Structures are given as C-alpha cells and as structure tokens.
C-alpha cells in the first residue's frame, strides 16, 4: 500500500498566535512535493505540527496518515508510523553519539523495543539490558554501508549529535538519519539552505535515492535551486500560513521568474481560483 499523508484545513498556533491558517496538502509515498514560500510564512511551523511538536496547538483541521488522524499521537509514535522531519535547525546534543542515538532510534522505529516489551510481559521474564536494541554487528554494518552510500563521512558515527557541526554537516546528518530510519513520508525543512554546491549535490542525491526506494518527500524550500537536482512531482506555494497555489514543476519555474512579490500582488485571484476549483 502506498502511504499518504494528508493535511486538511489545518489551523495551528504557537504561543497563542495563529500561524497556520487552513493548510491543505497531500504527500504520497514515492513522490516529491515541493513547498515553496517566503521566510516567516509558516513552513517550519507546518513541519513541526506534522511531527507533533508539543509547543504548537492545532486549532482546527486534521492530519491524516493513511486516512487516520495522527493528531493524538506523540512525536515518537508518529516516527514509528514512518513520518520523519529533517529539521531546518537541528539541535546539538552534547555527549550523544550518532551511532548510539541511531541504534536506539532504529531499534524503536523497527519495533525491536516493542517486541521485547511484549515478550517480557508475556513470559514475565526480564531480558538483559541491550536486548531491546538491534544487534550491534548488524547495526554497525548497516550504518557503515549507509554512510558510504550516502556520501557521509564514517567519522560521523562517533561524533556527538550536531555538536560543533557546520551547517552543511548538520544537513548531511539529517539525511543520514533519514536513510537509516527509512521513513515512508519525510518532511525536509530547507535541507538545501546554507549549502555549497557540493554539499547540495550530496543532499539532493540522498533524497533522490530514498525517493527511488519509495519514500515520499515534502521538500520545503525557499529557493528554486534544489529543484534542479530533485525533480518535484508537485509544487505548492505557501504564503502567510496557507497553500495558495499547487501545480506541477512549472509552478516553481514561474515563481523563479516572477518572485514572491507576484504572489502577493495576485493573492486574491489565487485564493478565489482555489475556491472556484
């Protein structure tokens, strides 16, 4: 079955201020949906709300994963369903190595933890610490292979999560995590920003590989640049907490040509068109 994430008339607020004002959007497995919009329009907010950030309050509307609402699920439950958010600004967590953290995350998302817990409940016997994790050798091999395949330096494994990372390294780190966790739907929040051309290629190449493997991506971006490397199936324009226009790749080209100013000028037409359609 192809997984589908649907955002329906979503209104959300942070600290009492409404940021999302009725978002409608669909992301399908195996497809790339680009979301373009100016700074401050609420793109990151949308990513956070989909991932379940507790700070954001959903006022109205719904988010459906394969037809079922995920609004009551905690962030980890959403991750286990196969939803992934690549952060625009990944936080640095000192002392937590990529390898340790990813082993725990992979074990959780692939159900190792839940299986062990069920088994312990069923048999009434404790399992030793570590048995809730994917076996070390298997994990290491997969991690090394994934780092090689996604052009991430092997030294990442021992480094602390984003601690002292350059902007580019952080974005590569997000791609590495995504490649290990193999989500069905990923929201990539400005994974292209602040990258030089080489890093951009690596990140874009990673996204393409994962999409080819069947991942669906919401590619949030401020610039058209990454779309030269990752071909979107759909492009939506985001403005002031709403999707104001959705179409094919030509929308991105038009935007590149006319700029966000044009969107602002034609906002009323776009909105009435949407209502008409």
């Amino acid at each position, binding site marked *: 079955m192809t997984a589908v994430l649907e955002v329906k008339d979503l209104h959300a607020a942070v600290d009492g201020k409404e940021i999302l004002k009725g978002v409608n959007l669909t992301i399908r497995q195996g497809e790339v949906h680009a979301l373009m919009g100016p700074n401050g329009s609420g793109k990151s907010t949308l990513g956070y709300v989909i991932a379940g*950030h507790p700070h954001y309050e959903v006022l109205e509307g719904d988010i459906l994963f394969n037809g079922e609402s995920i609004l009551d699920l905690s962030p980890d439950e959403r991750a286990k369903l196969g939803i992934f958010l690549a*952060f625009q600004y990944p936080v640095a967590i*000192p002392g*937590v190595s990529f390898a340790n953290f990813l082993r725990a*995350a992979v074990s959780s998302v692939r159900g190792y933890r839940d299986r062990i817990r069920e088994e312990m409940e069923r048999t009434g016997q404790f399992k030793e610490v570590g048995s809730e994790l994917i076996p070390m050798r298997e994990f290491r091999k997969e991690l090394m292979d994934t780092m090689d395949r996604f052009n991430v330096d092997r030294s990442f494994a021992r480094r602390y999560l984003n601690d002292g990372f350059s902007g580019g390294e952080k974005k590569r780190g997000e791609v590495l995590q995504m490649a290990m966790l193999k989500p069905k739907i990923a929201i990539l929040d400005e994974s292209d920003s602040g990258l030089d051309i080489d890093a951009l290629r690596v990140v874009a190449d990673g996204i393409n590989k994962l999409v080819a493997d069947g991942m669906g991506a919401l590619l949030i971006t401020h610039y058209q640049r990454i779309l030269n490397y990752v071909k979107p199936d759909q492009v939506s324009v985001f403005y002031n907490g709403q999707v104001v226009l959705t179409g094919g790749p030509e929308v991105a080209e038009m935007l590149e040509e006319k700029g966000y100013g044009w969107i602002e000028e034609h906002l009323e037409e776009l909105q009435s068109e949407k209502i008409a359609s």
Partner: protein
Amino acid sequence: MTTKTMIKQTISVAAVKAISDRYDEPEWLRQARLAAWENFVAMPWPTYKEETWRRTRLTGFHLEDFELPQTEVATFDDRQHLPEDLREALDKIDSAGALILQDGQVVYYEFDDSLARKGVIFTDIRSAIRTHEELIKVHLAALTPADENKFAALHYALWINGAFLFMPKHLTVDKPFQVLVLQSAGVANFHHTLLVGEENSEAVIVEDFIGSRQGMSDSVSEVFTKQAARMHYLRLQNLDESAWNFSTQRASAGRDALYRQLQASWGSKLSKVWIDLELEEPGGHGELLGLYFPQDHQHIDHHTNQNHRVPRCTSDLLFKGALDDHARSVYQGLIRVWPGAQKTDAYQKNDNLILSDHARADSIPGLEIEADDVRCTHGATSAKVPEEYIFYLMARGLSRRTAVRMIVQGFFEEVLNRVPVPGVRDKLEAEIAHRVGIE
C-alpha cells in the same frame, strides 16, 4: 532471637582503647587514637554558621544510633567461592590485585606475586602495620590530620582497617588495584585509604563503597603522588540510600607529578565529602572529576579545594550532577593560589542537570588568588533538560524516557570519557542508566 551475648559496643573512649587493645597496636598508634579522640571531643558539632555546613544539615543524625563493628566475617581463599555479587564485581575489572574488606575485616585478598617481588605493597593497613610499620607510621595522617574536621577526628580515633598501596620508584602497573569496602547494616565504619606513589611510579586504584544500610561511613583517604609519579584514584560510592556518609580526602602532587581522581557519589542518604588537592612542588598537575545523581530525598555535598602552593602547577576540576525527585546537591569549590605561585593554571567547573521541579542544586565556585601571573577559570551551570532536545530525539522514534536517558548520559559523557578503566566506565554507565530508569 539469637543467643549471642554480645554487648553493643557504642562510640566512646572505651571503644577507642578497646580497638587498640584488640589489635595490640604499637604505642604511637594508640597515642594517635587517643589524641584524635580528644580532638573529636573538643571540636564542636558543625552548625550552619560554618561556611562548609551552611547548606547541609545533620538533622536526624545521632552517633548513638550506630554500633561499632563486632561480628567476625566469613573469609574466602578462592575467588570462585566468593558470593556471586562479589565475584561478579571483581570479575568486571581485570586487576593487579583485589582486596575485599567487610567492616574492616579482610574477606578476600589476592595479589600478583611478581609485583610483590618488584616492591609493590598492596594489602590491608592492619597487615601492613605488622609487615611495614615504618611506612605506615610515616604516612598515616601525614596528609589528612586528625584535627582536619570533627569527622576526621572521629575517624582517626576509631578506624580499624583500610587499603594500603605502596608503589616503588620507577614502576608502572597498568592494571588497576581493586578494593571493595563492604559495610554492614547499622554499623559505623571508618575505612582508611593510604596510597603512596614513589618517584616516577604509576598506578590505578579503584575503590567501591557498598552497603551501610542505616549505617554510617566516615572515611579518610590520603594519596601521596611523589615526584613525576602518576596516581589514578577512582572512588565509587555506592552506599545504601539510608547511609550517612562523611569523607575527608586529600591528595598531594609532587614535582611534575600527575594526580587524577574520580569521585562517583551515587548512594547514601546524605554525603558530605571534602576533596583537597595539594600542589606542593612545581610542575604538578591534578585532575578532579566528580559524578553524582541523587534521587528521592538524597543530599549530596562536595566541597573541593585546589591548593596551588607553588609556581607552575595546573589543576582541572569537573563535577557533573543530575538531580531528580526531591534531591539536593551542594557543590562548593575553591581554587586557592598562594603568594608566589606564579604560572598557575587552574580550572574548575560544576554543571548540573535538573530533572525535576523539586530538585535543587547549589553551586558555589570560588577563587582566592594571591599571585598575579596566573590563569584561573571557574564556572557553574544549572539547567533543565531542554525540551528542544527531547522533541528532536522523539521525532526520531525514541520514547520520552529513552530520550531523557540519552540526554542525561550524554551530559555525563564529558566525565565518563576521562575514566581510564573501561570496566569502571561500564559500571558508571550502568548506574546512570539504572538511575534514569530503563523502560
């Protein structure tokens, strides 16, 4: 009911004399005990008016509540015959020698003969008094005197035994020496640690404090790190959480010597620990690491002193603590640079991670500098686990609890990284994981 007709031995001058009699101690030791008792009697009980006791109260502590150790303990000749928990504890570390004491009695002892032939002495202090009286006489109470504080005075009046390590000149022993200090319920125990590293020697010693349910532990340690010697002392305090724990520790570093210590304070109901580093000759370097993770109503108090008496010494202190439930921690530290101790480079840092709204960490770092060409840095932090960290990890599929555990372990990593014995590091990690709570 038991049929034992043992008289409950309580803390008194009679008990002091009785210990001396029982072990037929040399006169100098007997006199030292009695002098220490006089000190103890003369010194007032701490009040909060003293700076070191301002934040740690002894409410509910009564010396009369504790017995002096009486019972004979079972002894073992063979590691295989030890109770499983003790054997496992020893097996975790590949050691050059192991000593288990229970309430001052030797339960088990093993030591590599080839090291003895090279001049290493590793034994309990009681035995060392018989075999190497001069060495004990010269070093005992030479660093930490009996009038240091009221608890040190009590210690020197009533101590029965402890661990002794003597490293001869120019010898390095890679494997650690391991000591388990077991304490019975309700007992007042006075473990003494005496470590002597002669010129250019190197040794690692790991000491574990265990037990003491409803008891009291009043320990003193003295570590001599002589010229160019390297001593690594790891103290793991795993006492029962109903124990009262007082500990007076001092180490000296000679010319170009390196002294490294880790104090892991996990257990006890209340801990008051003084740790002093004496940099006595130029070129000495001292490193003091600390870990604590109090929970429930535990109260953990560390008071450190980095004493730079001479020029060109360096010291580096890092104490990290996580606090949960209603726990309380106190860290008080002083970097003291004496007149003339130029080119001192001293660092002191205390970080606290607060896991509960009811926990509280007090941190009072301090500098007292009487030289002008020095570099001294100190800092203290206290913070809750950032929600942004938790969300980031949860968005990757970790439960809230696992996320918090990872963050706490990461917080301690800076100290764990510097623990030189892998077996000890594993133990510390396991203790941290246990305290955060495994699902």
